[in-house]
């Protein structure tokens, strides 16, 4: 028994209706239509449908003629006929879309930058000299010690010592750096960087940008910008950065008193009394004023090693032939020689 063919391609049916089918398609169709009454019925319906849809429901030309007529006669158009508001040109639309995305990108960048600052900054630790006791060192994660003078500050990442040893310094500090060849220790002031492997040295920096580095032990690389352009300083040597000239030079005369704030030792060797008093002022937080009765300015030669103020005053009086009078924070030295 022949199995009834359930399905035929619709295009074949269309071709049969339009009389464009070839011999093969005709035979396929014959088999299909004979296989079921349903098929025959469906095909009849399809033919009728084709007729129906071919009827000219609309007459495009007639419709156009109506349009022309209405325009000519200036016929009133019903209110419900509504034209859309003129669209913005697509160019502007593209620009607006672009600007929208650009704005979003900017906001995203801004926010991520803000987050970076907040998160990044909180990743930094800042130690101030105010937090420290006198002669007390702050010990870093790698064992290095830092002595801070007065209000000086150091800042470093919380990850200090793990991959890098970088410190930012504001003011003055004395460093005792643990040796680590694999991880250089660097101190950055505004414009300069001091890099060491393991040494002890002093960095003095001012707001003006002037920096002085004096080395006590070891070797220090002191540079501004590129390391190659810098100085190598050894024990006993001192380098200065002049912000006006933007140059680093090795100082001929090492200022022995540079470390006085830390060591407590002041050296005077034929130092004019005015200079000596400036240093004493800095050390003892008092204004020292010399009142001479003669024209010449005496020179001071002595060493004050962690001496109390009283001891210093006594020694000064002896050396200068003076008597001191204290008024508030000012000490006046009056000559007693007549």
């Amino acid at each position, binding site marked *: 028994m022949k199995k009834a063919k359930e399905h035929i391609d619709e295009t074949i049916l269309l071709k049969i209706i339009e009389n464009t089918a070839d011999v093969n398609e005709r035979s396929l169709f014959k088999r299909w239509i004979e296989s079921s009454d349903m098929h025959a019925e469906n095909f009849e319906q399809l033919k009728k449908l084709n007729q129906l849809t071919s009827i000219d*429901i*609309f007459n495009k030309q007639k419709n156009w003629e109506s349009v022309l007529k209405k325009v000519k006669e200036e016929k009133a158009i019903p209110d419900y006929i509504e034209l859309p508001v003129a669209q913005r040109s697509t160019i502007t639309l593209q620009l607006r879309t672009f600007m929208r995305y650009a704005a979003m990108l900017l906001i995203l960048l801004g926010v991520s930058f803000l987050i970076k600052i907040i998160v990044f900054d909180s990743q930094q630790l800042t130690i101030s000299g105010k937090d420290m006791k006198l002669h007390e060192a702050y010990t870093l994660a790698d064992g290095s010690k830092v002595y801070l003078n007065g209000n000086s500050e150091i800042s470093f990442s919380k990850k200090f010592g793990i991959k890098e040893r970088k410190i930012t310094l504001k003011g003055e500090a004395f460093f005792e750096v643990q040796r680590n060849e694999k991880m250089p220790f660097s101190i950055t002031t505004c414009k300069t960087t001091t890099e060491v492997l393991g040494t002890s040295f002093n960095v003095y920096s001012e707001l003006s940008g002037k920096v002085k580095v004096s080395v006590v032990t070891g070797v220090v690389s002191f540079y501004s910008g590129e390391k190659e352009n810098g100085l190598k300083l050894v024990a006993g040597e001192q380098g200065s950065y002049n912000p006006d000239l933007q140059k680093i030079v090795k100082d001929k005369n090492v200022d022995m008193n540079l470390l006085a704030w830390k060591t407590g030792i002041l050296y005077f060797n034929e130092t004019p009394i005015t200079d000596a008093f400036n240093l004493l002022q800095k050390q003892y937080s008092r204004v020292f004023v010399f009142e001479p009765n003669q024209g010449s300015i005496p020179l001071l030669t002595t060493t004050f090693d962690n001496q109390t103020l009283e001891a210093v005053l006594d020694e000064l009086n002896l050396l200068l032939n003076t008597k001191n009078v204290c008024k508030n924070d000012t000490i006046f030295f009056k000559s007693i020689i007549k």
Partner: protein
Amino acid sequence: MELIKLTSEQRIKELFDNHFHNLVFHSFKITNNYCQSEEIVQDVFVKVWQNYEQIVAISDHKAYLYKAVYNSSLNYLRHFKIRQKHNEEVANTFDEAEKPIEASIVETENNNRILMAINKLPDNWKEAIVLSKYDKLKYHEIANKMNISQKTVEKYISKALSFLRKELADLLITIAIVLNFIK
């Protein structure tokens, strides 16, 4: 050599030729009354003609026309509903008007149903069958316009007819009976 400059009439006619049937179908979705949809589309084109200067600047004419027809059709429905209510009240006070011939009601209803069924077709089938049945284009012309092969055109149309046959089966049976009866 003379530069051929299209007049505003020619431009509008071009739009009309390209989009008329599709616009009627679009409107028909809302009105379910193809005679009314024809009127609406006509009126839209008249209004477009009257406002030609503004239309020229628009880049997407097709979208513009579709929107115009759609909104106008919605407005018509709203308007019509109000009027219908009014008419109902008015009709009750008058004698029954001359009854329209039943045949033409049936015809209109049949056409409406066919159009509704066509509106249900997927876009490409619909486009093909509208171009074939209403724009009276040959298959190769449709293939050109739609940028497809003629075989695909045949496929779309035959599939569309298949669908419509199922959709309008009850209608087709009735018509068969009527036609046979008339014979």
